[in-house]
Structures are given as C-alpha cells and as structure tokens.
C-alpha cells in the first residue's frame, strides 16, 4: 500500500512585548524563578486579568502578514484543565471567535510555489514551567506564566516533512521580520506541534492523526515528522491502527514516543471568560496597523532584485533576516555599490560574526564603516587583499577605513614607475622563470605576480601589476 502523509502544524509564537498578556510583570527570559510574578499570574484569590493592548496589535500584524481576515469582534475563552504549571486551573485562550481567520502562506517546493492555508490565529497566555529534581519533588516556576502567545494553526495542507519545514521557516521569517517575536528557539520563542497522519494514496479520507508536541528546531521537526510517517505506515501495514494521541520527539534517539501519564482526552469545557470583555477591532485600527507594517520578506526580496540588481541567491540570503537586510541596505546605499556590499556582508562580515558568535545587530563594524572600506576599494585606493586587513583592523579596533589606510600607509601603489622598477628587479633575479614563461608555461605568471606583490608589500594595484607584467614578460 502506498501512503500519502498529511501534515498540519500548530505554532506557538511567543510575543516580544515588555509585559505579560494580562498583567504588568516583565516577560524577560532567564530571571530567577518566580521573580516576575504578581497576584494575577500567580492566580491568587481575587486577581483579575487586564489585556495588554500591544498583544492585539501584534496579532493584527501577524494576521495581515499572513493574508488573514481580522475578526471585528473577538472573545477570550477559558480552557479548563488541571496542571501545576497552569495556576488558574484554566488557560485564557480564544475558542469561538479568534482574532484572525482564513489566511495563507506560499512556500517554495522545488520550482513550484505551494499555498498552505492558515485556519486561524489566536491570542493566549503561556503556562509556567515545571522543573524536576527539587528535593524529591518538582518545582513550579511561574515566570513564564502569562507570557503572550499567538497560536498559528495551519490547514492540513502539507504532504512532506520538507514542506512542513519550508512553512515553518516562512512563518518564522515573517514573525521575526514583523518584530513581534525574537525568534530565539532555544528559549522557546517559536514552538511547533505537528499533527501527522497517513492515508492511502488516492483516498479522500484523512487517517487518524497523532500530535507531536513541542519541537523546537527545524532540524528536529523534519526528523520527527519523517519518523512518525514511517512509524504510522509500518503500523498500518502490520495490521495495526494509528491511535489519536500526543507524542514527544526524542532528539537523541530520533523517535517519537507516546506521552506517559496522559489520561483520557481532556474535556476543556471552553466558555467565554467573564473576567474579560470583547475585543472590537475597527477598520480604522486595521488600516493604521497595515500602514505601519514593516516591509515583508517577499516584497523586500523582489525589491532587492530590481533596485540593487542582485542575483536571486544574494537577495535570498540577504533577506533571510531583517537585521541582515537592513545592514546590507544601509551599507549599499552609503557606498553605492550593492554587489560589493552584498559580497562583503555575505562573506567577510558573516564569517567574522559566526566565528565570534555575534549577532549582526551587535556587529563591531557598522554598515557605515564597511561602506567606507568599499569606497576605498572602488576608488582604487586599496586592493582587495589590503582591504581584508583593514576590515580586521576595523573589527578589532574600530575607527574609519580611510584613517587606518593613511596611518598605516596601506594605500596601494598605482605609480607605474615604482611597479616597473620592482618588476625589472624581479625579472632580473628570476631569469629562469622568465624563460619558462616565455617558453609557454603560463602558470609561472602567478609566481611573478606573487613576487611583485611581496616586494611592494601587497600595496601594488593588481590591475596595473598584471598589465605591466604581461607587457614586460612578453618581451
């Protein structure tokens, strides 16, 4: 039997607000346990929730960026269940009237574009954390309780693990571009649950699905989904039935496992939260948010192709994150050489950032400084080789490229007289190689170039060296 996998994804996006969704506690990650708490997020008797307006703004932004319709009236509902990391014994979420509905994302599948539907996006609060090994018990830390989340639910439109990853990457790019999520997957800012089922090829009925919860990297999502598809196919082929259940992915063993200790399906008893009032979103509000939306990745990509005449590969890399795109653009506009800016950003800069584990926002070399360097190259003041040294200097010590070149006397020599003299000296000292070259061994040219550059301490203008060498060697 041949099987067709069916995949739907639910992503929890932690929103980059300063305070929690229903109280003023800080959302800052990594604080001492239970430090960022108050009666509301501790669920003390008598505490009441009040909605953070920014969460609504961010939700509208996410909805607009994913082509959703924004619900004019939306309601919060209580999702009731007991767990120690859920202090109220219910999670405030949205059920019947979520803030966004019926959107989509387009992903690249090989050469094709595939549209993945987004069923809904809703606002909700995060739970706290359970920590094990607390003197024979588990510890409850409620710092995270009340952090605002957007839950993005896709239609079950994906058919392969690769499509799933492509969708996730696209969604990730959008929410980080919008500035509504910090994208820190290790800290849990972007969490994915995958619903996976298989059905016989050609069948119209979806099979029973299993839910793989809380996968926190694109690599693991791919592995988890592929494993689960294989597991389900094998199970059915052996005559078994897929059970609707929650599973966890074990990245060490590369398998999914049924979650232990989960009893029968929860009855969440959703009902509208009486402590909160409806959120009414006017057309004017939506319009304002739309006007203030930052440029989205797809639009930026296309603009980079036309405005900067960049090849697709470059545009793709440079628009992969907004800080990178912003850096590139600032640099390109300052030095007026987009291709050079692209090369330097994707090359030296990225390499240095990665080697030192630094994010581009914290780069010691600013776009303006890099632009200054590029201008010197374009103006013929320094060679490409020297430029690399200057870059290192900028990185370590800061300053301006022009000043460094002057202080260290790194300006390249284009004076033909000096170069000719050097060439003559080298040719005189290496008559053997001159003969070889003239005898047809073209490779020896490189040797001469190297020698000239060495003699001139790398400062000779390479183009001039090439020309003159060719002339002189020709005899």
């Amino acid at each position, binding site marked *: 039997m041949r099987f067709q996998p069916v995949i739907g994804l639910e992503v929890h996006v932690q929103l980059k607000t300063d305070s929690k969704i229903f109280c003023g506690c800080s959302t800052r990650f990594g604080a001492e346990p239970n430090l960022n708490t108050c*009666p509301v997020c*501790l*669920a*003390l*008797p*008598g*505490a*009441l*929730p*009040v*909605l953070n307006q920014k969460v609504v703004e961010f939700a509208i932004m996410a909805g607009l960026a994913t082509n959703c319709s924004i619900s004019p009236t939306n309601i919060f509902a*209580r999702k*009731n269940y*007991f767990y*120690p990391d859920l*202090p*109220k*014994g*219910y999670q405030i979420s949205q059920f019947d009237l979520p803030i966004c509905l019926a959107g989509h994302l387009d992903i690249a599948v090989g050469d094709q574009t595939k549209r993945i539907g987004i069923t809904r996006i809703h606002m909700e609060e995060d739970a706290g954390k359970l920590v094990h090994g607390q003197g024979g018990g*588990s510890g*409850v830390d*409620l710092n995270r309780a009340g952090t605002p989340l957007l839950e993005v639910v896709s239609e079950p439109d994906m058919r392969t693990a690769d499509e799933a990853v492509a969708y996730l990457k696209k969604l990730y790019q959008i929410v980080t571009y919008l500035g509504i999520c910090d994208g820190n997957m290790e800290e849990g800012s972007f969490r994915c649950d995958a619903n996976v089922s298989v059905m016989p090829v050609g069948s119209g009925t979806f099979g029973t699905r299993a839910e793989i919860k809380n996968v926190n990297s694109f690599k693991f999502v791919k592995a988890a989904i592929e494993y689960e598809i294989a597991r389900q196919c094998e199970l059915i082929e052996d005559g078994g039935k897929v059970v609707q259940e929650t599973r966890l992915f074990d990245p060490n063993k590369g398998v999914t496992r049924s979650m232990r200790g989960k009893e029968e399906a929860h*009855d969440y*008893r*959703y*009902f509208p939260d*009486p*402590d*909160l*009032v409806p959120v009414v979103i006017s057309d004017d509000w939506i319009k304002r948010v739309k006007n203030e939306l930052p440029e989205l990745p797809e639009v930026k990509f296309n603009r980079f192709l036309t405005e900067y005449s960049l090849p697709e590969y470059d545009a793709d890399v440079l628009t992969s994150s907004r800080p990178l795109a912003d850096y590139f653009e600032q640099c390109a506009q300052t030095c007026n050489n987009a291709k050079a800016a692209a090369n330097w950003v994707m090359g030296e800069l990225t390499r240095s950032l990665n080697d030192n584990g630094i994010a581009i926002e914290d780069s010691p070399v600013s776009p303006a400084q890099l632009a200054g360097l590029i201008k010197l190259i374009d103006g013929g003041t320094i060679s490409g080789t020297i430029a690399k040294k200057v870059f290192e200097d900028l990185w370590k010590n800061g300053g301006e490229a022009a000043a460094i070149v002057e202080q260290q006397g790194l300006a390249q020599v284009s004076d033909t007289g000096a170069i000719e003299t050097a060439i003559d000296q080298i040719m005189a000292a290496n008559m053997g190689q001159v003969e070889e070259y003239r005898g047809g061994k073209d490779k020896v040219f490189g040797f001469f170039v190297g020698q000239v550059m060495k003699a001139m301490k790398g400062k000779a203008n390479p183009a001039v060296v090439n020309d003159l060498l060719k002339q002189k060697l020709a005899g």
Partner: protein
Amino acid sequence: MELYEQTIHNLQTQLQARQVSSVEITNSFLDRIESTDQSINAFITVTKEQALLDAAAADQRIAAGNCAPLTGIPVALKDIFLTEGVRTTCASKMLDNFIAPYDATAWTRMKSQGAVLLGKLNQDEFAMGSSCENSAFGPTRNPWNKDHIPGGSSGGSAAAIAAQQAVATLGTDTGGSIRQPASHCGCVGLKPTYGRVSRYGVIAYASSLDQVGPMTRDVTDAALLLGVIAGYDPKDSTSVDCPVPDYTAALQQGVKGLTIGLPKEYFIDGLDADVQQAMEQAIAVYRQLGAEFVEVSLPHTNYAVATYYLIATAEASSNLARYEGVRFGHRAKDTAGLIDLMMQSRSEGFGAEVKRRIMLGTYALSSGYYDAYYIKAQKVRTLIQQDFSEAFRSVDLLLTPVAPTPAFRIGEKTADPLQMYLSDIFTIPVNLAGICGISVPAGISSNGLPIGLQLLGRPFGEETILRAAFDFEQATQWHTKKAAL
C-alpha cells in the same frame, strides 16, 4: 446613645468636632464585639491590635485637619475581601491559613481615607449559600433571634450591623447575598450595578454576577460608603469607566413624582403573611410620599433561579480551579502523587455546598451538555434582562419583597439544597440583569424578625433607589429599631 450605636455620619460630625476620638470609638466596638460575638459568631478574625494602631493614626490625621468621610470610622469586611497582611479565609478550610499579600481595591479606597479595620466577617463558604450555615467556622446567628439564620452569603456582615459590632461593613452580592441578609437582619444593603465597584481583590464566585456593596445602619451611610468604593479600576476589566456622582446629594430629592413598578410575578400567593403586610404598608407609605404605582410584568421571573444555578455554578467551577494545594491554601498530607494531592486537597478543603456547585457547574460546561445547559441559561438571561429593560421604559424603579419569608430557623433548609435555592427568587434576577438593588428595613414580623423591602433601579440608577429608600426610611424610622441581644 453608645458610640457603637451610631452611624458613620454621626460619628464623622463628632470626630471632626473633636468630641470623641477614633481610638475611643474603636475601643467601644472592640468591647462590643468581645461581649456579643460569642453568641453571634459574626467575626472570623478580629484585628484588635491593628485596629487600635489605625485608630491612633486616624486621630493624628484628624488633628492635622486632613479628614475624609471614613477617617477614623471602624468597619469590618466580609472575609471574601483580601486585606494585606490579614488572614483571609472566605469562610473555607481551603484558605484557613491564607494571609492576603495584597489589598482589594474597594478596601484600599476605604483604607486610604483612614478607615479602621475591626476584622473579617463570617459568610457562606466562597459566597455559596443563603443562610451563612455553609461556613467552616460555624454559622452566624441572627442577632434578632439567635435560633434563626442571619441570611447569606454576607451573613456576618449583616449580623455585625444588627449587633452593632461595626459601623458599616462590606458584603458581596451574586444572587442576593447583600440584600437578603440585610433584610433578615434589619439593616440597609445595596447591590450596585454590575461594574460600578471593582472586583479586584474580591475572591471570585461567579464573575459575571458578583458585585461589592455597602451594608449599613441607614441609607445615608450606604450612599456615603458607596461613594467611597465606587469608580473605575484599571485592574478590573469589567469595571465601568463612568463618573461617580455624589450619592448623598441625591438623597434629599425624595420620591415625589417617581413612578414605581410593582412586578406582578413577585407578589405571589406564597408570600408569608407578615411579608405581605409589610409590603402593603410600604406601598401605602410611598403613596403618601407622592410616588405613583404601576403594575408591570417580568414574565421570565420564574426561570431566574434555574438560569442562575447554571451560570453561577459554571463560572464558579472554573474560578475555584485555582484552589488545588499547590501555591497556597490547604494541602492534604500523605498523598500519592500530584493528581491525588490536588484531589485530596480540594476534597478536604471544600465544604459540601461548594463541592455540589462545582460539580453542577462542571457538568453544565461539559462536553455534550454545554449548549443544553450553559448556553441555554445565557439565552434565558438575555430574556430576563430584556424584561427589566422593558419595565424601566414605563417606571423609574421597581418595588418588591426581598425574600418570601423572614429569616428561617438554623437547620431548617439544609437538607434540601433546591429548597434553599428557591428562596432567592426575588433577588437573583437582579444579578442576572446586572441592575442595582437596595434592601431597606420595612417591618418586623409577628415573631420579632426584620422584614426588608427591595428597590430596583436601572443600570447606574443608584441615585434613584437611594433617594426612594431614604424617603421611606425617614418616614417610617424602621432602621431605628434595634435587636435586643
């Protein structure tokens, strides 16, 4: 007249004239509590030391000329209000050892004026009850006759006024829990419009029905206290942002020219004879005062109790989920793992009525029953609210009895919860509709128990019901009758 027999406004005058100090007044009440509460059991916690410190501070404030309406006035609060640093139990074993880490907004407003806290008052556990018999700390007894209930759930708050143990108290009202005990104990009890007073720091029972209100000796005090606690609170999303009028100024306007509606569904054959008589006499008084009467109909009245017991219990079942022995409150010992810990803690911590309502509410929300019970009830609620809106098109306020009978005997209705629920028929619809209501003393029954009358107003129509209540009170002086302890 003893200090403990006086009203806020009388004491205020004397304090400002330096005829008496807050410490003297406070001591008068503390002595009164000590000598009477053994047999009444209105108080769960008496905060004697703090009260005297607060009183001394108030006296300094008065001396500095910095007087507010409640400065130096000794009050007590239903134990449902969080009072920072003070034990707050909600009359439940679940919170027996809970020390509130913050103040309820309503209390903050009183405290910042320099009110003196005498202590925390008994109630039905988690505000679930109409008799104050569902308390983990024993029932409160009606000061008018100690074999009878004081009413509930704010039984302690009403009894404390009747026994003159505090000048004024705060209660909460979800289905009548201020008005009914006020009626049974011969004091004034006001349930403001939903959203008028902040619910922040008030232990939640049914979020869409709960309201905070004053319970006092007379209408003037109620108007005064309402003015202190009312108003928008950014910490409560259901708090309404509209101006707070001077409620005491409204009192003098009297009732002449107002049209009062008599809902025929409330004047039924089953009314106790004494209650019937008190209503008739009250209507006669109002006619003399210049009010006009019109019969109106609130056709969905008889569905209110059923509606309430689905909505309130559903909300309560969710609101009480936070009591599971993890972060505060009662935790059972010797349990086998986490789920067992939660189950045992809750089962040990909650009394029978609370468990019953949690069960009912959970059932009403559960899969397969949600539409039939919870949604159905919310739809009938719409009809009930529409009844009132319709009636208020032709009248300024409504007059009704508060309860079908005066206070019944302790233990009389505990065997049959449904019978207990049905006795709230006249007060429950008010909470469902969110409108305001006040209970004022209107008579004494043939066996010496108080009978109250209820005035109902439009949303934010507190001024209208207060002025009608004031006129009646001044004309009849029922509020001057005191329980002989």
